[in-house]
């Protein structure tokens, strides 16, 4: 019974829910206090965006589910986030490279959505676009600083990029859900976003003195609920309290 818009909102919402969760893991464990605070800020924004998007998804679905029910009571094959976002947080360099690759893409997606004909979605996207500008600036500055810092930091940023790059193919994944929403001028055309993303990414990576690897891309399936083994563990932790007390309010 799921409509393309419901599916599409789950994809947008789950991306932010899962990446926000990973980013929040840094709270108390950052390399400097300023970054504990900054990364927590990003996690807060993303969790807030997820809440708005999933609430809207629940509304569209019309079966009485809200963001909490969608976040805490779906199983892993029902999640629609990009696989890249569920990978463990890695070192600080990995976290920054991932945030940058994602935020650069999100920038163009949100820019489109902010002026799409679906008012509720456009409103959320406009807010998220503003927040994402900060995420993009913060992460790209760190990618440059670390890429062009010491030998060790350069090596770590290059390694993070080597690890993450093959997952980026999924950013541009499209299927019937996108086709239906493109027909309504809601979803953007990923083929049109790709060169813009590449230009933005190349500019930053050049300043960071690192290069994307040449090898093959990964097989991915997050948009269809096919995930890495990491997501199940993430959800087990995230959902444990809520699911231990069915029907409780918090």
């Amino acid at each position, binding site marked *: 019974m799921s409509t393309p818009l419901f599916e599409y909102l789950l994809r947008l919402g789950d991306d932010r829910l899962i990446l926000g969760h990973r980013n929040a893991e840094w709270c108390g464990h950052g390399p400097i206090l300023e970054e504990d605070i900054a990364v927590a800020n990003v996690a807060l924004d993303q969790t807030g965006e997820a809440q708005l998007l999933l609430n809207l998804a629940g509304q569209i679905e019309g079966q009485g589910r809200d963001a909490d029910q969608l976040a805490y009571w779906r199983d892993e094959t029902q999640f629609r986030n990009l696989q890249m976002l569920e990978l463990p947080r890695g070192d600080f360099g990995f976290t920054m490279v991932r945030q940058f690759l994602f935020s650069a893409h999100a920038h163009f997606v949100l820019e489109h959505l902010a002026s799409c004909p679906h008012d509720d979605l456009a409103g959320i996207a406009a807010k998220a676009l503003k927040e994402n500008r900060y995420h993009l600036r913060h992460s790209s500055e760190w990618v440059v600083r670390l890429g062009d810092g010491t030998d060790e930091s350069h090596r770590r940023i290059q390694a993070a990029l080597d690890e993450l790059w093959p997952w980026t193919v999924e950013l541009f994944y499209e299927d019937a859900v996108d086709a239906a929403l493109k027909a309504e001028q809601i979803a953007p055309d990923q083929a049109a976003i790709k060169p813009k993303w590449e230009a933005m990414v190349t500019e930053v990576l050049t300043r960071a003195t690192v290069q994307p690897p040449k090898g093959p891309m990964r097989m991915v399936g997050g948009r269809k609920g096919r995930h890495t083994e990491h997501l199940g563990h993430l959800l087990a932790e995230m959902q444990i309290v*809520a699911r231990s007390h069915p029907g409780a309010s918090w």
Partner: protein
Amino acid sequence: MATEAKPAAPTEDPVKLAEFEARCDRGETIEPKDWMPEKYRRQLTRMMSQHAHSEVVGMLPEGNWITRAPNLRRKMCLIAKVQDEGGHGLYIYCGTETLGTDRAELIDQYLYGTAKYSSIFNYPTLTWADIGVIGWLVDGAAIVNQTMLAHASYGPYARAMIRICKEENFHKRQGYELCATLARGTPAQKAMVQDAVNRWWWPSLMMFGPHDTNSPHSADLLRWKVKQKSNDDLRQRFVNLTVPQAQAIGLTLPDPDLKLDQATGDWKFGEIDWSEFNAVIAGNGPMNRERIAARRKAHEEGAWVREAAAAYAAKHQPAAGQAA
């Protein structure tokens, strides 16, 4: 606290010292550039840095539940709270630096030396209810202490406290509201919050430190108007505030001796287990080793990031605006 290195007390110019103490007596604010006795500087550096370390170490027990918060609203509240505590740490470190010791050195003193942080954070957070109880009791106790410190003679400390107290009040209200929600929830939720109160009550009372007769630094701090009230006075104030709050949401406090003294209006309470307090202060509490280990790990694993940021800033000197 007794383990701290104590350089010989410097001999101060008696005229300047008398003038300084007169200023404190008149309730004037001492600013970083003003003359101050070395002992005042040392005591404040100790006290303020200990406070800053506490804010940062305090991120760990609560951070422990961010990934398990039971709904999105609570998750965001908790992230924001832990983030606030980091901000408090940062703000107080900056205040401490005005006394002449930089943050890196202060951090070294607690990660690898003998500097302390609040003993309360050496207890584990075992259930979700601990998040509510910490906000209510631990932030609540901190507010009682910090409201007094907002009148401290040292300007940067007093100003930091005024700003921080506003946020601590918010944390306390949020924590209390969380406890109230659990207390009127399912039987399992109610049992969870009562158990958390049972575990955190006594450690919260210990936050105010030893009896005044056993508090090594109290006399100086009181004379110089860094502190305006004794540990025991503050503790009593906290108990008086908290007992009716517990009653209002149907929770009990784990002290059979608790009773209202009609004459004074004070809630009299039982004797604190000082052997537990001393064991925690000495580093043998339930979580001392884990807390320090977690902070050292973050610090050491972050070394390459800090070095890289410094190297990048040095390389790009002319465009200094780009650095962190």
